[in-house]
């Protein structure tokens, strides 16, 4: 039963390569292949989650026992992320019919496969491979919207992520030279003696910056505004919502299992704070809706990085709460941005045209700011109490920056909300005001409903996240599940 | 006014033909000019002789000669001397042109003369009444207007004849010329 | 204090205040006359004025609020009198302290302000604006002085303040204990009377006696009564705060007449202050003296 877990990873991969062929054969069938695969993937992961057999468990690919072969480590955190990938892939499925559909759907399948792989894989090099695959798939998807600025953005993003992956490779090579193995569990055993020195730290930092490109870490996220502004809003929703979180997952795994040095956490905290400050302040002046959302996501991810820098399980709980909340809200907002893209000025009076969209927008911004009953408040509350508990002054600065950032965020979000409701002069015909497309409005309100549901059942959601964080936090569980299956490593 | 300035002024005034100059004293010159030559004279005095201040315009009602006499008193701060230009205009149309463009204060004097004598000045900015706003009779300063007759007709008198005054008169005191003879209006009749 | 006795006191105190007030108005006009080397009005002149004004046959009113204004002007002071202890009669001084008295002394001027407002006369409104500004000016030093005295005596009850001052005879008088506060109080009292140097709001030539421009007949009569009450209340308040109140009626009246003589005689020697000069003067010297006085008291 456990081995079924591989399918959601493998099937989309095959689908991606077969799709152009099927598409050429008959478009009708081709259209349904992608969603079918994804639905099947969701079903597998869903009943895996429900059946909840002995979590976590390790799956050796091709019979080679770790640390030699490649193994998939499936614990509740990984499963959650994988399920999220399948689901979001389904929601953001590019249905639009035009000559590019085949290529775009194939790339989407590839992206989903790579992301699931990223979530599940337990081997460092395997992570690197999937990371590259994800990067390639995103280049294709962004350039698919075939506009001049999209190409320029893609090129700039290509160069940046290329250098990033070189740095990651450098880090992995250093770790390999030091310990001789790439399996995470094995590394976790060896880390205290071998990787606890300066060399280990350099390796971690280079991986941090390399992966940070995707995770929108402060200095390396200059590609974010252009890419999210020019790419199709479905793609940028998927990128902003999920892919950046997966990159974060890698760093999370490394931090929990291998690296415990203090300097690493300090660097991450510092970069996180800078990310929050730059993201929120840039968003204050943004004139374009998508660009504003891009900067806001930089800010939010900066907050998640601050949460990541809090050691042990409490920090992880905050990270998970913040990231899943951001996932829901940001993808919803990007869905709204589908119709409402472009300059903010001509959004004046948009509420009159589509009252539902305006209400959903206000719901999302209230939750983003942390209005009490909504889950955003509880996520911020956990983060705040953790940050306050820390002793070193940098954390207090982080707390202050976090609070001020929320104020700025409230200011620019509600400036936009007030603009929506401002009466528009009569002679301006009603239909020239932009209106979000039907489908994306439906998915946005779907996210809204998800948010409200999370608000109502906050306590069970709280326990779930706590359980997941607990499982992810203890490294020993990870090591003995992976290595126990193979009778102890070398 | 020093000798050479006075001399210089005299031959300056010669330029206006039909002018009669009479020097009243070292600081006063009387000039008689035909009515239409006045603006030229005033321009000359203001422009070349430094008479920049029009201190007054007065008017005399020659009822027998059927003429109004307008006198323009112009003063110069440099030569400290006053030139009075006298002109005569016919009484019945009683119309003359305004010198407002040369001297702004003229507006006020002309308005006053219009109210009191009924002379109309073309070009004067404002000709409404401003002193005799309650008065709707003829211009009162004209000679043919008999103020006392107007009063006798409109107002009544206090026959102020208390006892003590009567006893005084009885003893032969009191006023020598009885009040009736004193009245100007009775004198004529 | 039997209720009947209290009722008599409540009626008697305003009456005494009115009579003494009339005498004070007379003294003021007599001093003014003597300063200008004039003979001065006959003895009962203030009474004649008031009776004549109340005896007028036709009087002009601008509305109900105009009448109520005058009633409040007189009524306010009548109520204030009952809070001022006089030798032999304490009225309801215990029931409300100095702060209540200061507020009750504000009610007549505000009632008058309402009445004058209704007359729709620009002179009146300008007068009232200046009167309120003058009130702002002289009330601050007055409050500082009252704070000083109340803090020194530890109570706001006038009866006790007078008792503490009379305890040690001359030495324990307020003026002796707190000389600076006494001087500041004097200046503030002079300004509150609204006499010559500080009467910008009744400036006859400029705004035709300000608030009183539309007051004829019994309205003006009411204001004359208010003026007499005002003189009485201010001087008696000063006496009870600084000169130890009156042990007997004679020295009580002597002290209050002397106290009133000072500002009144200063009054007719100075030209009128502009409003902002009045403010500047009042906020500079008496406030400074008062604060230093309080520093000593503290």
């Amino acid at each position: 039963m456990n081995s079924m877990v591989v399918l959601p990873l493998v099937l989309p991969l095959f689908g991606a390569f077969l799709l152009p062929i099927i598409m050429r054969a008959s478009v009708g069938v081709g259209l349904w292949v992608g969603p079918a695969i994804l639905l099947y993937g969701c079903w597998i992961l869903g009943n895996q989650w429900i059946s909840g057999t002995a979590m976590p468990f390790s799956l050796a690919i091709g019979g080679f026992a770790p640390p030699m072969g490649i193994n998939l480590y499936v614990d509740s955190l990984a499963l959650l992320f994988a399920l999220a990938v399948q689901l979001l892939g389904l929601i953001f499925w590019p249905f639009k019919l035009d000559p590019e559909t085949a290529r775009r759907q194939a790339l989407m399948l590839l992206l989903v496969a790579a992301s699931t792989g990223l979530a599940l894989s337990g081997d460092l090099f395997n992570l690197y491979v999937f990371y590259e695959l994800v990067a390639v798939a995103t280049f294709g998807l962004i350039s698919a919207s075939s506009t001049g600025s999209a190409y320029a953005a893609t090129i700039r993003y290509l160069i940046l992520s290329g250098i990033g992956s070189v740095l990651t490779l450098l880090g992995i090579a250093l770790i390999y030279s030091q310990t001789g193995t790439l399996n995470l569990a094995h590394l976790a055993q060896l880390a205290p003696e071998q990787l606890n020195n300066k060399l280990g730290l350099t390796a971690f930092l280079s991986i941090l910056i390399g992966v940070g490109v995707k995770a929108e870490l402060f200095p390396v996220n200059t590609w974010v505004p252009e890419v999210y502004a020019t790419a199709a809003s479905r793609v940028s929703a998927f990128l902003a919502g999920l892919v950046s979180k997966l990159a974060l997952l890698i760093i999370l795994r490394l931090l929990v299992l291998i690296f415990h040095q203090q300097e690493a956490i300090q660097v991450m905290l510092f970069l996180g704070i800078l990310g929050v400050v730059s993201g929120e302040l840039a968003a204050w002046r943004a004139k374009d809706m998508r660009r504003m959302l891009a900067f806001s996501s930089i800010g939010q991810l900066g907050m998640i990085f601050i949460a990541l820098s809090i050691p042990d399980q409490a920090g992880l709980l905050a990270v998970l709460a913040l990231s899943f909340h951001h996932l829901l809200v940001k993808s919803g907002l990007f869905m709204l941005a589908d119709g409402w893209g472009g300059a903010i000025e001509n959004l004046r009076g948009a509420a009159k045209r589509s009252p539902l969209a305006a209400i959903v927008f206000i719901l999302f911004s209230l939750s983003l700011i942390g209005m009490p009953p909504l889950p955003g408040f509880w996520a911020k509350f956990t983060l705040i109490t953790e940050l306050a508990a820390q002793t070193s002054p940098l954390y207090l600065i982080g707390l202050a920056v976090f609070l001020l950032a929320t104020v700025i965020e409230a200011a620019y979000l509600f400036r936009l909300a007030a603009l929506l409701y401002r009466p528009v002069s009569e002679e301006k015909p009603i239909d020239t005001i932009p209106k979000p497309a039907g489908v994306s409005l439906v998915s946005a309100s779907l996210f809204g409903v998800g948010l409200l549901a999370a608000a109502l059942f906050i306590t069970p959601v709280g326990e779930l996240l706590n359980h997941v964080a607990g499982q992810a936090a203890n490294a020993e569980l990870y090591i003995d599940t992976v290595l126990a299956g193979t009778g102890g490593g070398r | 006014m020093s000798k050479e300035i006075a001399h210089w002024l005299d031959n300056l005034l010669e330029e206006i033909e039909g002018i009669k100059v009479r020097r009243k004293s070292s600081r006063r010159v009387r000039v008689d000019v035909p009515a239409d030559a006045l603006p030229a004279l005033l321009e000359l005095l203001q422009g070349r002789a430094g008479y920049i201040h029009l201190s007054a315009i007065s008017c005399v009602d020659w009822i027998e000669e059927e003429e109004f006499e307008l006198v323009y008193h112009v003063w110069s701060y440099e030569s400290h001397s006053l030139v009075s230009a006298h002109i005569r205009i016919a009484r019945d149309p009683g119309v003359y042109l305004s010198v407002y463009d040369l001297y702004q204060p003229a507006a006020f004097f002309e308005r006053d003369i219009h109210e009191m004598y009924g002379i109309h000045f073309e070009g004067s900015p404002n000709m409404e009444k401003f002193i005799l706003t309650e008065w709707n009779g003829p211009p009162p300063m004209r000679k043919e207007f008999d103020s006392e007759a107007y009063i006798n007709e409109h107002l009544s008198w206090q026959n102020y004849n208390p006892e003590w005054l009567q006893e005084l008169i009885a003893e032969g005191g009191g006023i020598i010329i009885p009040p009736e003879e004193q009245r100007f209006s009775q004198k004529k009749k | 204090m039997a209720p009947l006795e209290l009722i008599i006191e409540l009626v008697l105190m305003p009456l005494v205040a009115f009579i003494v007030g009339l005498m004070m108005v007379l003294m003021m006009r007599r001093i003014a006359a003597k300063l200008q080397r004039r003979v001065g009005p006959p003895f009962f002149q203030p009474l004649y004025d008031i009776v004549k004004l109340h005896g007028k046959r036709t009087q002009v009113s601008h509305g109900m609020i105009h009448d109520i204004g005058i009633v409040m002007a007189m009524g306010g002071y009548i109520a204030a009198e009952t809070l001022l202890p006089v030798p032999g009669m304490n009225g309801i001084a215990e029931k409300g302290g100095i702060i209540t008295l200061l507020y009750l002394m504000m009610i007549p001027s505000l009632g008058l302000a309402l009445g004058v407002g209704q007359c729709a006369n620009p002179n009146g409104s300008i007068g009232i604006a200046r009167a309120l500004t003058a009130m702002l000016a002289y009330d601050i030093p007055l409050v500082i002085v009252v704070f000083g005295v109340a803090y020194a005596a530890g109570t706001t009850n006038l009866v006790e303040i007078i008792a503490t001052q009379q305890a040690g005879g001359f030495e324990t008088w307020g003026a002796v204990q707190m000389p600076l506060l006494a001087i500041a109080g004097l200046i503030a009292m002079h300004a509150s009377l609204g006499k010559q140097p500080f009467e910008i709001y009744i400036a006859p030539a400029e705004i035709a006696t300000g608030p009183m421009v539309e007051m004829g007949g019994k309205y003006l009569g009411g204001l004359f009564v208010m003026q007499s009450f005002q003189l009485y209340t201010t001087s008696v308040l000063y006496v009870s705060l600084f000169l130890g109140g009156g042990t007997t009626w004679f020295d009580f009246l002597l002290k209050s007449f002397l106290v009133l003589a000072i500002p009144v005689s200063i009054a007719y020697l100075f030209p009128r202050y502009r409003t902002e000069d009045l403010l500047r003067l009042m906020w500079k010297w008496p406030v400074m003296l008062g604060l230093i006085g309080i520093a000593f008291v503290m």
Partner: protein
Amino acid sequence: MSSIKQIPVIEEKRTNPLARVFDELVRFCRSRSLFLLHYCTGCGAIELPPAMTSRFDMERLGIQPMVSPRQADILLITGYVSIKTLKRVILTYEQMGSPKYVIGICSCTVNGGMYWQSYATAKKLDEYMPVDLYIAGCMPRPEAVIEGLQQLMQRIKTGEAKGWEDYYRNYDYYLGNQQKLFGNDWQTPTDVITEAKHYDLLGEGTLGEHTALLEQHQQPLEALEMRLGHQVKEPAE
């Protein structure tokens, strides 16, 4: 003075003695406390300051100068009254609270004085308002003014100075003279007729053809009464 002579000078005595004593007291106070409004129309006004200040000191007689007509009892017309000023003098007179007295100083108010010939001055002041006392002299000296004032005080004490009632009782006569001078649409903001009705000083001479003329073109002058206005239906805009 012509028309005043006919009214018999009988002081209607009130019945009960207390009222009579009270009237006596009020009349005494009225005579001993006079508020003076000297309307400096002409040159006579220069005589007033010496009468008030230290040399002659009016205050010992109880006379105080007052600024506004509402507060004044005596209206002192000092000098010639030009027609333009007469309008303002009549307005001021009507704004005074009665019992009010008019004193005409200088012979100009008596019979036109030095300006008897002038078309612009009013000759007889008492045609337009009841004058209680004339002080002749082309600027009477302060002694004469004070002498006049003392005579007025005497007449107030005896109750003879009733000029102000005459203005109400013969308003039509005065209004006629005023309309003759100022034209038929002459109107002062004070509503003398309703005032006469209010204080029941209506005489037979109050209403006549001149007041009828006044009625035609009079703007509404009734006081703004305080009302809720709920029952007043909206005026048809």
